[in-house]
C-alpha cells in the first residue's frame, strides 16, 4: 500500500520589522528554503496571541513558527520579551496536552539575517517532519452516534406509545 506523502503544513507569524524583512531578503538573495511555511505578517511578535498558535494547530497546521526581532531590538521596546515568556507557557501547556513542544518554535532574526532565517526554517520543517502529521481534527472525531440516537428515539416513541 502506498503510504501517504507528508509535507508538514506550517503557519508562520513573522514580525514586520525584522523577520519578515529577513524572509524577503532571503528571497531577493535567492537563498533556497523549504516552502512549507505560510507566513502571516504582523507588526510585532508581541502581537502573537497564544490563541493564534492554538487555532492554527486546531485547524490543521502541523507546526507553528514565530519569528521576531532579537531581544533588545523590538520596535515596540520590549514586546518580544513578552512573546518569549508567553511562548514558554504555551510550550509547557502543549506538552501537558500531549503535543510536542517541538511543534512550535520561536526564532529571532534581524532584517539582515535572511540566510540565518532560511536555515532556521529548514531545520524547523525537518523537525516537524520527523514528528509526523498532527491532524488535530481526527483527535476530536467521535464515532458518529446519530443513527443510534435516532433509533433510541423511535424505540422510545413506540414503547411509550407517543402519539396514540
Amino acid at each position: 500500500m502506498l503510504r501517504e506523502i507528508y509535507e508538514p503544513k506550517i503557519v508562520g507569524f513573522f514580525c514586520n520589522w525584522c523577520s519578515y524583512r529577513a524572509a524577503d531578503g532571503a528571497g531577493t538573495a535567492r537563498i533556497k528554503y523549504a516552502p512549507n511555511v505560510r507566513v502571516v505578517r504582523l507588526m510585532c511578535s508581541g502581537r502573537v496571541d497564544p490563541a493564534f498558535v492554538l487555532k492554527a494547530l486546531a485547524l490543521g497546521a502541523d507546526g507553528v513558527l514565530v519569528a521576531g526581532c532579537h531581544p533588545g531590538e523590538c520596535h515596540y521596546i520590549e514586546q518580544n520579551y513578552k512573546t518569549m515568556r508567553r511562548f514558554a507557557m504555551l510550550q509547557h501547556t502543549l506538552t501537558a496536552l500531549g503535543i510536542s513542544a517541538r511543534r512550535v518554535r520561536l526564532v529571532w532574526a534581524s532584517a539582515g539575517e535572511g540566510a540565518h532565517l532560511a536555515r532556521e526554517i529548514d531545520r524547523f520543517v525537518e523537525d516537524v517532519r520527523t514528528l509526523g502529521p498532527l491532524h488535530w481534527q481526527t483527535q476530536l472525531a467521535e464515532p458518529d452516534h446519530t443513527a443510534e440516537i435516532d433509533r433510541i428515539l423511535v424505540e422510545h416513541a413506540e414503547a411509550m406509545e407517543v402519539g396514540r
Partner: protein
Amino acid sequence: MSDKGTLAIYWAASCGGCEIGILALNEKILDVAAAFDIVFCPCIMDTKARDVEHMPDGHIDVCLFNGGIRTSEQEYMARLLRQKSKVLVAFGSCAHEGCIPGLANVTNRQSIFETVYLDSPSTDNPGRTLPLPEVQHNGFHLALPVFYDTVRTLGQTVKVDYYLPGCPPEADRVWDAVVAILEGTLPAPGSVIGAQTTVCDECTRTRSEKKIKAFKRTWQVWPEESQCLLEQGLICCGPATRAGCQSRCPTVNSPCIGCYGPNAGVEDQGARLITALASVIDSNDAEEVERIVREGVPDPVGTFYRFSLAHSLLRRAALVPDEERHELPLPRAAQ
C-alpha cells in the same frame, strides 16, 4: 390550562450544583413559580424523558440545561430538549464550557474505565468487568449509553440560544436572566447573558506594578488582604475571567479559578491567561522564565483551563500523544 409559561430544568454531565444555584434565588423562586409551570425537572420532580417525548415540538418555553455531553444518553436528551424548547439556555459552566467534567478531556474512555473499574484502591472487580454499551444476558438484550472519549459542551452538540456562565451561576445573574426572559429584553440569540468585562473590574484590591519572580501556590502563602493577589505571586484567573460573581473568591482572600469562563470577545481562556501572566513575570532571561513557569505552574492545563478545556480551541489533550507515536517518517513530496 394556565397562561403561565413552561419551564424545564435538566442535568447532564454535571454535579447538581446548578440546581442549588437556582434554589439560591431564595424567595424569588416563588416569583419564578408564579411565572412558569415546571414541566420537567428530574432533580426535584417525578418527570421522565417520556413526558418530554410526548410534548409537541416547542412546547417548553424555556429550558435551563446544565451539564456537558459525555454520553450518548446526554446527547439524546440535548437533542430532545432542543426540539421541544423554544429557548434553550446552556446553564452553568458545564453546559457552557465543559467545566470540571470536561477536564477529563486530558484522558480518554479507556483510561477512565481502567481507573474507575480496575485500578482504584476501593475497587473489587476480580472478573475485570468493564461496562459495555450492549450485552446479551439470559436471552435479553441490555443496553447502556455509549461513554464518549471527549466531553463536549451543549453548544458543540445542539444550537444554544443563550449561555449563563458560572459554577454555579450566581443567583443574582440567574434572576437577571429570568427578568430578561419575562420582560423580553434578552440580548441577541447565541450570546452570553451577563457582564462583558473581567473579574478584575469587580475586584476591590489595590493594583500597582506587577513583577513576579516566582509563582506561589495557595497553600504556600497567607495572602495580604488588600493587595492584588497576582502581584503577590498567586495565579489569579481574574484577568481572563468574565465578571458576574462580584469577585467572590478574591474577596475572601482566594484567587479566582476562572469558573465564569472567558470574558467577552475571548475565544480561549487559557491563551488569554497565558498572555496576562507573561506580562507580569519579571525576567528577560529565557532559561529563568522557563524555570519560573515549570516550577510555578506544575499543572498548566488544570491552571489555565480548569473550567474551559472542552470549550478551548484544542478542546482536549491528544488521544495519541506525540511522545507515544512511533511512526517512521512519511515520504516527502518529490522536489
